[in-house]
């Protein structure tokens, strides 16, 4: 494979346009932004004309773009000079649902910052073999309901690596992996989003080495109804998930709107989820939550596909290091905490909403985490009889295998499978 390199200069446009647009080099305005329509056009043309193996390099600079930048070609790398050096700002975006959109297979995006997109920062739809490395997706004014929904948003992708990225300010999820298969999300930093990292309706995800703090909820593993893909098999391990206490600023109606501020790791309606060997602390509502779709406020008889399984099952929580948290819960749980544990007490480290499928013998939820207790909040009876749940003191029958990336992503070091206990 020949690797052709393109160095894009703001003035490397066709001769005719160069005359018109580049009689002077584009300068950054007082706000530090480079406004250069010819640059935007040329960059988009490069992405249209790219061939497999091409590396499109974007030099350092903070560029104001007005439209979604899109790549539909397979096997292309988009590379900046660093996530804080090459910055694509979509502040004032006039068109498109996201900042950068990828629909090509085998694409790598790295060392680039994407700021203030009108909708999502980065979206990849229906692709294979995607790598996002050292990409920053941020809304720069901090948490705000007007911010875009997702920072990094791969949906219906297969074989996916997201590493060393930074996501901030998303009004839904900073990293949102939806309806995908074979996923590694590692060593990223998620701050000041509603959800730091969310794995939704996905099959086979390893989420490790990440830091999630100052979100509303740190790491979420959700299943949503009415979606072609039903999720199963996510391992959340060796992450640091602390002080995710930012007030929920999602739009009403968004799934993550139902997440109480102060949530560490939250599993909703998903099956086959392991949460182990994490440092989880000082999340004011719950360090770990296990809940059903009934606890979102969106469960209706007519609006939910009849084959949707709203109950979380085959869950394992073990070997995490909990500290603090549960001491100042959000919403309804504040009342519950006061009644059960008093003003100075705290909720146990693991909360379960108590909704279970009457048709199965056991939800197969195992919590084997030292002193950590499980509180069954009795959601089906509107929290009438909450109690410490002792039936979850078990060992899982089987453990999930490690995710192994394939093809061009296979040489990336995948962590060894979890130690068996």
């Amino acid at each position: 494979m020949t690797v052709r390199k393109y160095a894009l200069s703001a003035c490397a446009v066709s001769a005719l346009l160069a005359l018109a647009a580049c009689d002077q080099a584009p300068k950054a305005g007082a706000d530090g932004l480079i406004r250069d329509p010819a640059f935007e056009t040329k960059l988009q043309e490069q992405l249209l004309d790219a061939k497999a193996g091409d590396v499109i390099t974007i030099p350092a600079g903070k560029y104001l773009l007005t439209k979604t930048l899109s790549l539909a070609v397979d096997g292309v790398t988009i590379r900046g000079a660093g996530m804080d050096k090459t910055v694509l700002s979509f502040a004032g975006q006039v068109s498109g649902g996201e900042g950068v959109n990828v629909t090509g297979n085998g694409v790598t995006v790295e060392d680039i910052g994407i700021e203030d997109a009108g909708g999502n920062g980065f979206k990849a739809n229906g692709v294979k073999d995607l790598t996002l490395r050292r990409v920053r997706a941020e809304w720069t004014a901090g948490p705000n309901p007007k911010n875009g929904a997702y920072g990094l948003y791969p949906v219906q992708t297969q074989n996916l690596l997201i590493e060393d990225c930074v996501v901030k300010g998303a009004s839904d999820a900073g990293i949102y992996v939806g309806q995908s298969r074979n996923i590694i999300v590692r060593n990223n930093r998620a701050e000041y989003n509603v959800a730091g990292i969310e794995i939704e309706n996905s099959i086979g995800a390893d989420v490790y080495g990440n830091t999630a703090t100052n979100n509303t909820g740190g790491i979420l593993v959700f299943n949503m109804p009415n979606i072609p893909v039903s999720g199963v098999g996510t391992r959340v391990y060796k992450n640091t998930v602390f002080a995710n206490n930012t007030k929920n600023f999602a739009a009403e109606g968004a799934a993550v709107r139902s997440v109480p501020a102060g949530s560490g790791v939250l599993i909703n309606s998903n099956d086959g989820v392991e949460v182990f060997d994490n440092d989880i602390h000082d999340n004011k509502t719950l360090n770990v939550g296990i809940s059903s779709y009934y606890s979102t406020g969106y469960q209706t008889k007519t609006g939910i596909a009849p084959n949707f399984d709203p109950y979380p099952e085959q869950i394992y929580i073990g070997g995490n290091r909990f500290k603090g948290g549960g001491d100042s819960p959000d919403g309804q749980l504040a009342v519950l905490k006061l009644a059960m544990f008093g003003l100075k007490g705290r909720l146990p480290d693991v909360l379960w909403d108590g909704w279970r499928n009457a048709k199965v013998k056991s939800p197969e939820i195992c919590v084997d985490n030292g002193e950590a207790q499980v509180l069954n909040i009795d959601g089906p009876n509107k929290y009438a009889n909450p109690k410490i749940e002792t039936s979850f003191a078990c060992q899982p029958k089987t453990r999930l295998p490690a995710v192994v990336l394939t093809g061009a992503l296979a040489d990336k070091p995948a962590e060894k499978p979890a130690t068996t206990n």
Partner: protein
Amino acid sequence: MFKRIVALGLAAALLAACSRAPDHVVFHAKDNPARLSEWGLFKVGGKTLATTDRVVVYDLATPLFSDYAQKLRTVWLPEGATATYDETNTFDFPVGTVISKTFYYPTSGTDRPGDSKVVDKTTAQTRQSGAKGLDLKNVRLVETRILVRRENGWEALPYVWNADQTDAVLARAGESIAMTFADGARKTDFVYQVPNVNQCGGCHVQDFKTRKFEPIGLKARHLNHSFDGPQGEMNQLTRLQIVNYLKGAPAPDRAPRNAVWNDTREPLEARARAYLDANCSHCHSATGAARTTGLWLRAGELDPRQLGACKPPVAAGKGTGGHTFDIVPGDPDASIMPFRLASRNAGEMMPEAGRSLVHGEGLALIREWIANMDGVCQVTGESL
């Protein structure tokens, strides 16, 4: 931006001086001509635009809204070639087929409509179907999009008209054109977006597995109605067969047919569904870009939940507008769908591309449709 337009105009003028435009359609099997005229679809002379020989003009019962632009749609097939009818999907067109769509607005009070920043809302008086060409005296031509069927599939090429309205220039990366839309005395500034080639795919890639571009309008249900032409008013399925462009079609009364969205003689349900089919279903289908949302709006969809009734959004973000369900039967104000149709903000608005203005009349139709729906969204449980 101004310099750029001048430069493009200059380029077009220089090129035009070097060669003559063909007077018949030329199928470019590989190259992407820099000028629209090289396709030979149109005779542009003085103040008129006419189609060349064997170019068939068609229209759709209910079209996609594109910032109130009118559209002249044409199809041309190579001599002796024929498309094969399909009841549901786009007809199977042979290699060499050239489809075009020209976007234009009425203008007033200017001798140079191609230069006019202000464009008017179309009225009964200013409407031109394009069936017999266009009178350009009070018309601003904005862009012409070509869909060409090549050996490896369909390709899309957007062309932007020059200010003299003599030719249009290829703009693969799209173009942003600042305009003012005049609806009587009410004027709204907007940025008209000529899509780039990938954005063309945003609608024309209807199946995410194959990734192939396809025409959208040339389906039985969109064409199955009467339209003017050289043979007079006639059903378009019939016309396409008369000119030997189509084989295998049944009699029109046995083919599917979308309603005309603003013809109030037709049932509300049929008009709303035709509107959603034309404006949303290129993405919102089981195979399109928005297959991931579970909101599927093709004409053939029957499941009320798949159509949005009491369905929670999947990835709408702030596009929910603070509402819980895509559609709350009987309550358009509490429904997400009309909120997104009424928004002009990237990240909230639907469709995501192809409009900058709100289609007030289409929005009113969808609101009326929802207002007349029966049912309630009864929630079980509550958020933590």
